[in-house]
């Protein structure tokens, strides 16, 4: 929680002072008793102040990794560290600074939502009992559960349970929030609220480690991302760099696809695919600062407007014209060679 990390977007790369990573794993490996290799030699670095998206198909080892980071599961080999301290040895000193939502919320159904939070807070020996009531109310307020706080938790909907789980993670000011699928079970409005909350927390300087299977969610809120498949980390880095790996494609909707393809080729567009009423192609080669961390979009050297003008000059009728930006999903598919929801 240092000043230079106050701005969340892409600043960790640009900042002159690089603080110790909030999460650092080296060669982290877990082989369960059955012999199944869940995590295989994972090297992970989560910079301070980042919103870190953790992606991977079901069964790729994300949750086992999170459990090892939080000291719930003993690594078979390798090391995991939080704030530069080894886990699980330093759990007592480190975990009070970490709020977590792991594999969905869990609560005592026979207690009210509020009493659930009181229970979790009373478990924390470093939490001050004198401020408990105020902190519990503030956390409930923050996730929009204040009105339902007296209801028994078993009567909560999945979305409300999810909110209660997030409230438990926010009982105290945290330096790191680990949120595993935080928008599960929420309606679109709830998802938007959670995303807003994550941005708000990040703006306050909290590092957020967000695992999700929703790629556009990661793309919307995360500054950094890592992709796991079959227990291995495939790639990690700032989101801008990851999605820059796949350049945007030009897409023209036209009743004259053959003419359009010819004109575009003349103007240096490569990889042209002409379909019925639609032509797509890669914009001319990149020469520019693609690694610029300020921009979340890949650099686009050729102005698409000039191409549009050229098409119209050549008498090609254009219905729609635009650049389809490279998404994280494109990057993911390019990396794994498979659809996202395919289990590894």
């Amino acid at each position, binding site marked *: 929680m240092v000043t230079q990390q106050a701005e969340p977007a892409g600043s960790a790369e640009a900042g002159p002072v690089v603080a110790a990573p909030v999460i650092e794993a080296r060669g982290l490996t877990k082989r369960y008793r059955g012999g199944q290799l869940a995590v295989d030699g994972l090297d992970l670095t989560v910079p301070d102040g980042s919103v870190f998206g953790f992606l991977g198909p079901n069964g790729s080892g994300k949750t086992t990794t999170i459990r090892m980071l939080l000291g719930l599961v003993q690594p078979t080999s390798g090391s995991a560290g939080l704030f530069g301290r080894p886990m699980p040895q330093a759990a007592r000193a480190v975990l009070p600074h970490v709020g977590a939502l*792991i594999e969905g919320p869990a609560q005592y159904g026979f207690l009210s939502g509020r009493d659930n939070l009181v229970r979790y807070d009373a478990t924390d*020996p470093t939490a001050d009992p004198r401020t408990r009531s105020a902190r519990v109310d503030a956390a409930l307020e923050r996730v929009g559960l204040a009105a339902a706080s007296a209801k028994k938790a078993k009567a909560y909907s999945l979305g409300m349970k999810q909110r209660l789980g997030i409230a438990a993670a926010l009982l105290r*000011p945290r330096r790191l929030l680990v949120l595993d699928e935080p928008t599960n079970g929420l309606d679109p409005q709830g998802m938007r609220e959670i995303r807003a909350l994550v941005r708000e927390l990040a703006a306050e300087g909290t590092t957020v480690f967000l695992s999700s299977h929703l790629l556009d969610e990661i793309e919307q809120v995360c500054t950094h991302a890592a992709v796991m498949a079959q227990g291995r980390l495939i790639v990690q880095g700032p989101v801008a760099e990851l999605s820059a790996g796949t350049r945007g494609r030009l897409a023209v909707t036209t009743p004259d696809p053959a003419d359009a393809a010819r004109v575009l080729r003349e103007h240096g567009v490569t990889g042209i695919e002409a379909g019925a009423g639609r032509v797509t192609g890669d914009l001319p080669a990149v020469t520019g600062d693609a690694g610029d961390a300020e921009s979340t979009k890949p650099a686009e050297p050729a102005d698409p407007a000039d191409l549009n003008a050229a098409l119209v000059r050549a008498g090609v009728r254009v219905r729609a014209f635009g650049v389809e930006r490279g998404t994280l999903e494109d990057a993911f598919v390019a990396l794994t060679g498979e659809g996202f929801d395919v289990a590894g």
Partner: protein
Amino acid sequence: MSRAEATGSGADARTSSAGTPGGTPPDPAATGRERSGLWWTFGLFRSELLTTFRRWRTLALLAVLAAVPVLIGIAVKIETSGGGSAGEGGGPAFLTQVTNNGLFLVFAALAATLPVFLPMTVGVIAGDSVAGESAAGTLRYLLVVPAGRVRLLLAKYAAALTFCLAATLVVAVFALATGAVLFPLGDVTTISGTTISFGSGLLRALLVAVLVAASLVGFAAIGLFVSTLTGSGIAAMAATVGLLITVQIVDSIPQLGAVHAYLFSHYWLSFADVMRAPVLWDDVVKNLVSQAVYALVFGSAAWARFSTKDVTA
């Protein structure tokens, strides 16, 4: 989702230092050391007690235990209303005395519930203690709070022992109340034939209740250990209660006499010796030693298992 800055604002300087934006980052190591003195407070134990005793299941178990002495009292009253004496056909110890002195219902009820009912309820509470949290998924949240594994285990065991005492006292108090309502109270005739005042009889009844509760210490440790082995609360409860029944059967087979002295339930009924004059402490002490050994062995086993266990539920 209103913006509630107050999350940290209510905290005093010690806690709020952890999250002030723009402030100096707290060194987790330093704060950990600074607060290590607070590690062993009773907060977690109190929370365990509240959580245990606010469950309907716990209250239902206590209600069943409370019903036992009331039923015994009513049965004895009906049986003897025609002028006959109770317990001629056998039954729990002390039953014959109940009609003369209601206080004996305490001893009779404890003798009736100790072999099965009391340990069964303890088996439910202790067996469910860790496995139930694991099944509900709350265990992982308690551990990342962090509750601390050893600390959590100790709090769970302490709560289970408190339940042992509470359960025993429920039986004793309801027996005393039923006895007072249905039967005369007065000076107490001990097993040895001497007479002691009602007051000291009451004190002995309290001592007996505490000894009965102490008899469950070893079994509670077994339940805790079983609870660390599985992720299913039902399985842990069933295994613990099954073990109890097995041990009771083994204890009743004379051919297996060689192992009887080592069974946790073998000296359970030694509490009756408190009603002798003078009190015969031999078996009482053997019972307490046996319970301590069981608690130590299975407590250590639970610790060894739980402190290294991968929490995947």
